């Protein structure tokens, strides 16, 4: 749990809150056409509950923050560049909003969307 101790008490930031920030940052990254559930079960659950954090998993390892993002990329873009740009954008937005460092961001390409075959 992301935690900060202040003189008045402590502030906890749930993984879900972090995931929401990461989700919206990802959708703004160029080349990303969607986020994908990690597996079928999660996909079903996400469809039913309509959670705003589909495809994003957030873990705290001690106080280190790790984020996994599963994306679908537009066919015909340079995938490595898109992925690293997602990692940069998410890191920037999360750190800006939380004021705490992100340890690792892992970007998984779950698939490609072909809107125009060449």
């Amino acid at each position, binding site marked *: 749990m992301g935690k900060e101790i202040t003189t008045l008490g402590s502030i906890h930031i749930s993984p879900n809150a972090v995931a929401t920030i990461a989700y919206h940052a990802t*959708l*703004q*990254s*160029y*080349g*990303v*056409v*969607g986020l994908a559930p990690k597996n079928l079960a999660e996909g079903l659950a996400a469809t039913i509950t309509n959670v705003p954090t589909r495809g994003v998993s957030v873990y705290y390892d001690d106080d280190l923050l790790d984020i996994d993002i599963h994306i679908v990329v*537009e066919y*015909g*873009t*340079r995938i490595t*560049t*898109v992925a*690293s*740009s997602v990692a*940069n*954008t998410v*890191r*920037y937005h999360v*750190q800006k909003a939380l*004021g*705490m*460092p992100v340890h690792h961001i892992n970007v998984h390409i779950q698939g490609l969307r072909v*809107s*125009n075959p*060449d």
Partner: protein
Amino acid sequence: MNPDTQARLERFKATPIDGQALKKLVEAGLTWLRANQQTVNSLNVFPVPDGDTGTNMVLTMQAAYNEIGNLGHRSIGQMAASVSQGALMGARGNSGVILSQLWRGFARGLHGQDVLDGPGFVKALAEARDTAYKGVVRPVEGTILTVAKDIAAAAEHALKETDDPFEILARIIPAADASVQHTPELLPVLKQAGVVDSGGKGLFFIYEGMLRYVYGEALDAPLVSIQPLSAMNLENSMEAVEPGQDYEVVVDFHPANSLDLQRFYGDLEEMGTSIQVGEGEGMYRMHIHVPTEKRYQPIDYIMGIGTITKVAIENLLAQMDDISRKTGGEKLTLATIEPGQIAVVAVSPGPGISRVFASLGVAAIVEGGQTMNPSTQEILNAFENLPTDKVIILPNNKNIILASQQAKDVTVKQVHIVPSRTIPQGLSAMMHLNPEGDVEKVAGKMIKSIDDVATGEITVATRSVEIDGVEVETGQVIVLLNGKLVLAAVTIEEALLGMLEKAGAVESELITLFYGQDLTATEANRLADLVRKTYPGQEIEIQDGGQPHYQFIVAVE
């Protein structure tokens, strides 16, 4: 349009636009973009590591051009496909990926065509827009995407009146420019920063480069450009004072008519150097260095073209003297930090001590000490812009440890504090710095090492007091050993020798004396010689510390 340009344009219009012609146009776009690369970079507002939009776009265009540079005769469709392929392979950064998608759409629009005609060009621009928009779930307006959209719309509009591709190209340039200027209205973050979108500006330069090539205009020298006010760097321009240019003149003004930049720069260049022009908040700011006799000339000149709201004139030579006196006549050379390395921030009370810290590899110095504690913000500012996450702070004073702690709490960087209470402790810790090492281990070693050194401080008592069994009268010379009052004496000499005795200097190897700004070099050297005589078995070093209040800071190790 002059007759030469007219003739050149006629020649272009008479020749079919095939693959070779496209190659020339792409090359022109690349060259012009590269010439204006810094302008595009300076517009960047999104501080991510790969944020140099201009550089990214140039590298992407370069990759696209490399793909076609050696190709012989091709149809326009084939050549555009190769451009697209090259841009895709070489796409760098967000803007590069979008640019590659624009080329991909452009190529698709021209698929199977031999030569470029008006309708084909318009169709390709529309395809470029559509393809680029498909690449993102939530298109953000006020970016390169918007500019591509406005270009396609302008092209479609132009097609109603002409089907000559060069005429269409000529008409989309002003539309692209207008679109770029409009981006701050669509994207608040741009407006806050007072800039236009960098990617959009880059795209504008590519098309403008093509048109300049058609008109036979120069492509290598960037146009003089106006920068946003926020990007004007007037502080650092101090370093570039040319002999003879003694005055810095800064004028804020509203031009009466729209400013002819080219002429404005030309006129200013006859008066002085280091010219910068910025625009923002509805006004312009001009900055120039001029010789003494011309110091009022820029003001009179600008009076003639508009209304002046503010004038600032500064004597650069006097300022330079001031700065050199502060830094002890030499510029401080701090360690350059690569991303991932450990950066050390040290608090230093005097220029001489700063120099010693710099020579040991400190990356940033914060001025401060006993009577002038730096704020948390000052400490934070010292390391926030260093290109690394790993920071070690040496407060070098017990009153500054807390501010350092607070700086650590408010930053996202990984900060370690080595709680050095004195300058010698800080210097001793610096001996254990390994910039490539594991920051935690390095900090641990540094913390351990601060007890390896004994610190003596010699100053004059400002009030009568009794502490730790030592009675002190106002005006007496007092000695602090490791922060504790141990001795009061009448002369500095007596205090220095008494301090060394108490510190057990006989057992030590090295004694370093930092003399303060209240002592002359001659006096300090005389005292150092005295110490050398008293301690013949020890190595004695004397340094101009330049610290206020303390006649001597002494390290015994």
